[in-house]
């Protein structure tokens, strides 16, 4: 190339200096959009994370006969573990169950003389959606309407609850994904439109350049570089704003209030990186593409 990067860089800086207002408008738009995206990414993650952790608590409770022996417990444990789609089986003895219940409701259990609770197995499926299949394997072994083992008294019956939970989880996940897609589309359109407006203000300049015999790329490079500079500046401003917000608002809340810190969300460093790449990429590509219609002279 006959022209150095330095030349194009000087050209774009000159353009920004002399067209401060449109450049500032583009900068502000990209900054605000990036801040919204930067807030939205962790929120989407937290929501889907919360939904998934709720779904992760889905399990089948297997209650043994009141008089079940240790040998029977061990046998049932083995049988449960061999079932397909079972990830983990946790045993809770009647004594542990009693202690647990007593903690939750001391008064009610003080009235009881003995322990009315059976030994319990908590069976966790490999995936939340497999829970109904696992339940069927235990409560309706071989489709005969019989328990997997005669020592099992009953199996928790939360079919309706489980179905509803799974539906809600799926709904939350899909909604979040849809919102994210909409937000990204809106950001791209908004940024593209702002860039187009600032180019429109300079279409005469482009026309003159073409008449003097400038090639399309000779005209385009300064605009693309300008897009990169504006995008990067906007990303930096958005990142600083978000970082300040995190330290000042979110961190104190998170230490007092478990809910915020509970679901795993994107770290601040990867988030910065995503915003920087998005800001620079969208602005640069946006300027390059928007310029096309003004180059047709």
């Amino acid at each position: 190339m006959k022209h150095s990067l330095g030349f194009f860089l000087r050209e774009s800086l000159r353009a920004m200096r002399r067209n401060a207002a449109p450049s500032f408008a583009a900068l502000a738009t990209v900054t605000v959009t990036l801040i919204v995206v930067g807030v939205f990414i962790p929120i989407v993650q937290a929501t889907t994370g919360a939904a998934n952790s709720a779904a992760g608590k889905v399990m089948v409770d297997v209650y043994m006969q009141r008089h079940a022996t240790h040998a029977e417990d061990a046998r049932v444990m083995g049988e449960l573990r061999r079932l397909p789609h079972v990830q983990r089986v946790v045993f809770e003895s009647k004594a542990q169950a009693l202690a647990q219940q007593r903690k939750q409701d001391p008064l009610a259990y003080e009235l009881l003389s003995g322990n009315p609770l059976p030994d319990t197995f908590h069976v966790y499926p490999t995936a939340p959606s497999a829970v109904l299949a696992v339940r069927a394997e235990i409560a309706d072994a071989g489709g005969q309407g019989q328990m997997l083992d005669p020592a099992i008294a009953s199996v928790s019956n939360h079919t309706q609850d489980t179905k509803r939970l799974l539906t809600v989880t799926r709904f939350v996940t899909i909604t979040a994904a849809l919102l994210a897609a909409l937000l990204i589309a809106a950001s791209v359109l908004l940024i593209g439109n702002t860039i187009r407006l600032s180019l429109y203000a300079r279409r005469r300049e482009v026309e003159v350049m073409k008449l003097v015999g400038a090639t399309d790329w000779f005209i385009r490079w300064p605009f693309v570089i300008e897009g990169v500079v504006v995008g990067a500046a906007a990303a930096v401003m958005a990142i600083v704003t978000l970082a300040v917000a995190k330290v000042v608002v979110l961190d104190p809340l998170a230490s007092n209030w478990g809910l915020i810190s509970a679901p795993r969300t994107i770290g601040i460093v990867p988030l910065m990186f995503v915003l920087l790449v998005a800001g620079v990429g969208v602005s640069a590509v946006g300027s390059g593409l928007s310029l096309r219609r003004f180059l047709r002279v």
Partner: protein
Amino acid sequence: MIEFRAVTKKYGTGAFGLDEATFSVDRGDFVFMIGSTGSGKSTVMRLLIKELEPTEGTILVAGRDISSIKRRQVPFYRRNIGVVFQDFKLLPNRTVYDNVAYALQVTGHSRKEIRAKVPDILRLTGLSTKLHNYPDQLSGGEQQRVSIARAFVNHPPLLLADEPTGNLDPETSIDIMRLLYRINRTGTTVLVATHDHAMVDKMRRRVLELSRGRVVRDEATGLYTRDESTREFAQRLRSPAEAPQIL
């Protein structure tokens, strides 16, 4: 240098820009194109810089059919043509110096060459003291001189001027015409579109008159001496109009 062969340009609205216009301009000529608004003068200019494509007919420039020039080559073609407009078309964000330098930057001249050439051409056009002014700080005549300097800095073989004096007072117009004449004397073919009949009559150069897209008059008058100095030329322009001399 330029040859129009039965060139027709129809606009989308159905209006005729040009209607089978045929004429030719020789190398080194100074030609006026006159006609009222809408007669097709600007269409000729825009066809020549390939801003428009003819509906029918052939346009030859320097012996080459310009319809054979591909879109990608148009910028390189335009570098051989200097263009001056009624509204100057200067870059508002650049100084006089940078406006002229841009035409050289486009063609890939080094900064050293630019530093050597730009002051020269600005001296020729009488703008040496306005180097660092922006276009909006200049008078109309000065702006037009900047645009002529920009058009001529590459020393193109062909210079087109579309109503170059349309926005200027008579005295300034004479200066601009004088400048165009001086450029013509360096061997550049100059084609000037204007509706300033008085000026054209005084200049006594070849006149092409267009009306509704047709060439209705083509006077290669021969009334002028080719080697007239620019000073004599200007003096004649300032003198009161003589009786029109008709061949």
